[in-house]
């Protein structure tokens, strides 16, 4: 008998048996092979969950850590600041190899990353390697020759500044600037693709093909990183989208069109992640579009929600969760804040801008817009990444290789201005750069497809560097006992939705409950607490937020009047740049139910996990180089993770 026939026979038997059972559920059925009673049948065809809790499921069991935003020498500004490592080197380093940094120092990660996106600026991609290599076309141009000779004669820094200024003004000679369509540009993009394809090792390490679209008009940061799901066969059919006209545009709407065109042309998929709203001077999450001066419309909201499902909430140029002026009742809001101005500090910040720059405020405004337009443009998940311009995704506090190659470890790097604008008199010092961050992705396996799909469903969380595990599930039926099972995630997926998911249609009389858990990074600090941040829209159309402490270490008691859990204390020895894990907990888990739920009100919930205080990279620098930091330099911090939210939308 053939296999198919045997299968068919089995199905027929099964169907007959089931039919018999359904017809007479309680009665015993006698046939010529004996009596089939209900108990016996249940043993054969279990109606409830399978005995093995793992059979028939394919949910993620571990997060994969990576960086979606790393620059190499292929980025114009990175090259100018001395980066000599190419995309290929960046992947080798991320995989855990020891290499030589551009500053000549040996460097290695404490542990390999699981994935990396080299996202070099699309404008001028590959210019510096050509310049440094003495490309004949560059040397044939007077401007190119001038810079080349400056670099050759040891005045590289002057050349770099001149190049960056000319680039910013669009004053680089057309003959030498690689733009899409030129052989030089094609070469740079092909090498970017090839480096990723060569480094990609399904199951072990994922190397995504990507680039950064760097819209920066007037110094206002509207940057987006673009990540392709597929390999070079599809990526090679296009060239990156740039911001310079006529080929490119600085308006995100045009970028989204390019994304659609890529998908139509290749049948592939692509996603965009914006970053550094804190340097956009009120333009990152607009209610009024800066390009038109008009309120955002339904099309904008729809396309943005579709194209930009994630936001890079923390990175070297500051943390963008929230701001003390936006969240006055959040005592942890003042974390690694950059609020002096836009990216080049050409315009000072005003408090009115903040609402349109920070993630939490955007999540709140998203609820408001959704009520008006029917679509929430700011329904994004949270990632952290480095934005390092060194080819090195190295953002651990004791292994921080800086923002640019000129800020790789040195005795003076903390006290060099990072940006300085003489016209406004504003400056941001080197010490203000933060060793942050990575993204944790709950994917079923470490492949381009699985990671990309997990990012699209927002099952991701941001960390400021430590690789803690964070779980966050929302549902209607979580009970405290769910936090005590051997594998809480099983309950999480069965009874609720994971981070990035949606709740709706509240059962009568029920408030949403959340299963939330965190496990410390095995080589980093213990955990202080887990908080759940709720934002909601009231009947009057006003948004609100509240931070709840839901799990914490030790026997601390929440303050009866404020409900806040007192600080965990500190074990940091700044002079020696050490701490110990005698306070805090290695893991925290709880089930929390919203005590103030109104089923008529739109809301979002996300978890924030805080580590106990640890020495900041500046403390490690001070210790290693034997230098004294000025009093204003922060030397400690509480590293953290932010999960993607879970949204509640009334039916």
């Amino acid at each position: 008998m053939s296999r198919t026939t045997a299968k068919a026979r089995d199905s027929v038997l099964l169907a007959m048996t089931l039919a018999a059972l359904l017809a007479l559920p309680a009665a015993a059925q006698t046939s010529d092979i004996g009596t089939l009673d209900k108990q016996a049948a249940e043993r054969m065809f279990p109606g409830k969950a399978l005995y093995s809790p793992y059979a028939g499921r394919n949910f993620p069991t571990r997060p994969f850590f990576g960086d979606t935003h790393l620059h190499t020498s292929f980025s114009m500004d990175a090259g100018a600041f001395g980066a000599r490592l190419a995309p290929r080197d960046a992947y080798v380093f991320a995989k855990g190899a020891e290499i030589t940094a551009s500053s000549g120092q040996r460097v290695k990660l404490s542990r390999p990353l699981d994935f990396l996106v080299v996202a070099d600026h699309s404008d001028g991609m590959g210019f510096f390697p050509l310049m440094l290599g003495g490309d004949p076309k560059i040397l044939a141009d007077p401007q190119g020759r001038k810079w080349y000779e400056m670099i050759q004669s040891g005045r590289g820094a002057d050349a770099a500044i001149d190049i960056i200024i000319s680039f910013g003004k669009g004053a680089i000679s057309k003959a030498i600037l690689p733009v899409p369509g030129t052989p030089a540009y094609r070469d740079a993009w092909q090498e970017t693709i090839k480096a990723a394809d060569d480094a990609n090792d399904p199951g072990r390490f994922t190397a995504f093909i990507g680039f950064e679209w760097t819209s920066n008009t007037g110094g206002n940061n509207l940057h987006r990183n673009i990540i392709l799901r597929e390999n070079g066969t599809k990526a090679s059919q296009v060239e990156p989208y740039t911001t310079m006209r006529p080929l490119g545009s600085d308006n995100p709407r045009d970028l989204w069109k390019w994304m659609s065109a890529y998908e139509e042309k290749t049948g592939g998929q692509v996603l965009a992640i914006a970053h550094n709203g804190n340097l956009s001077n009120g333009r990152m999450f607009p209610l009024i579009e800066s390009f038109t001066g008009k309120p955002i419309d339904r099309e904008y909201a729809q396309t943005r929600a579709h194209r930009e499902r994630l936001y890079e909430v923390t990175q070297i140029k500051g943390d963008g969760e929230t701001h003390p002026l936006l969240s006055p009742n959040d005592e942890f809001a003042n974390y690694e804040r950059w609020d002096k101005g836009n990216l080049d500090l050409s315009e000072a910040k005003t408090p009115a801008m903040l609402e349109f720059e920070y993630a939490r405020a955007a999540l709140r405004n998203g609820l408001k817009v959704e009520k008006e337009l029917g679509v929430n443009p700011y329904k994004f998940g949270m990632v952290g990444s480095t934005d390092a311009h060194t080819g090195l995704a190295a953002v651990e506090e004791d292994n921080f290789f800086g923002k640019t190659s000129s800020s790789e470890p040195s005795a003076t790097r903390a006290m060099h201005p990072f940006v300085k604008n003489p016209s406004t008199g504003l400056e941001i010092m080197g010490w203000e750069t933060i060793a942050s961050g990575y993204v944790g992705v709950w994917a079923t396996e470490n492949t381009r497809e699985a990671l990309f799909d997990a990012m699209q469903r927002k099952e991701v969380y941001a960390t400021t560097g430590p690789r803690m595990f964070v779980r966050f599930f929302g549902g209607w039926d979580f009970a405290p006992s769910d936090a005590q099972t051997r594998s809480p995630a099983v309950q999480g997926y069965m009874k609720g939705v994971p981070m990035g998911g949606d709740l709706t249609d509240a059962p009568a009389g029920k408030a949403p409950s959340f299963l939330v858990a965190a496990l410390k990074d095995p080589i980093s600090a213990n955990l202080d607490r887990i908080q759940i941040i709720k934002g909601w829209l009231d009947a009057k159309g006003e948004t609100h937020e509240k931070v709840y402490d839901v799990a914490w270490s030790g026997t601390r008691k929440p303050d009866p009047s404020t409900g806040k859990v007192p600080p965990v204390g500190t074990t940091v020895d700044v002079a020696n740049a050490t701490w110990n894990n005698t306070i805090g907990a290695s893991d925290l888990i709880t089930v929390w139910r919203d005590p103030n739920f109104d089923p008529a009100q739109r809301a979002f919930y996300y978890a924030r996990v805080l580590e106990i205080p640890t020495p900041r990279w500046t403390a490690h620098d001070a210790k290693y180089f034997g230098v004294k930091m000025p009093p204003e330099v922060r030397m400690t911090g509480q590293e953290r993770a932010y999960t993607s939210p879970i949204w509640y939308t009334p039916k």
Partner: protein
Amino acid sequence: MKTLLREPLLHFLLLGVALFGVYGLARDRAPDGTGQIVVTQSQIEQLVIGFTRTWQRPPTPEELTGLIEDRIREEVLYREAMSMGLDRDDTIVRRRLRQKLEFLIPDLASQIAPPTERDLVAYFDQHADKYRGEPAVSFEQVFFNRERRGTPAWEEAKSALSRLNAQHGSAVTPDTVGDTSLLPIEVTRSAVSDVARLFGGTFSKELVNVPLGRWAGPLESSYGLHLVLVRERVPGSLPELAQVREGVLRDLLAERRQQALDVAYAKFRARYAVVVEPLALAQGESGVSQRQ
């Protein structure tokens, strides 16, 4: 001095000088009979490319003139040296020529018959072990939180272990002992190095020695204690050909080159009647050692 006079190099040099003198006196025409040296355009282009690669810029006109002059000088001396037979019995020249031929034969071979898809598949099948990944392991684990249980954690884990392995009576399921944790309770076909990243290096090293099919432990990780049930060890999975295609092609070509070389060498070798004289005792050296 006596030793110096016996030195073959000296003989060689003297011979060379003599030859040079003889030829130099005997002829004033160029050895190839034409007396013409043509520096072709493509040779000049090669010079420019070589220079640019080294100096990261094209040569100036003066530099180019210099390069061409040098090329002419090289050609003149090369021809004269060849006509004097200086290439003969020169170790470096011999080695270089051998090397050239050894490179040439296999390159020709691989160009004549590029490997077909079938060749690749066959090669991949024959050499499967070369392409295997890292060994992997599948296991289940039960976590014991030392922070919560304190010192008794070890004993409690031990006692749970015997109950997990009990056939009947006191038998328990893994879900009923141990503590909650975010670590995966079931790890399926994970590379040993990945296990190390999740549970720490000590744990993954110990895991290698755990016998299959029985609960064992406790093993220590960065988080606490674990009982483990190792279900299988996989000796490194075989990738799809498509995943390692480039490497397979490279290896196959390398093998082909070696084969081509061996075949060609066998053919060449067959053209010669080789006589190896009986090994004479190394007199000089044994004499030296005797004197000491």
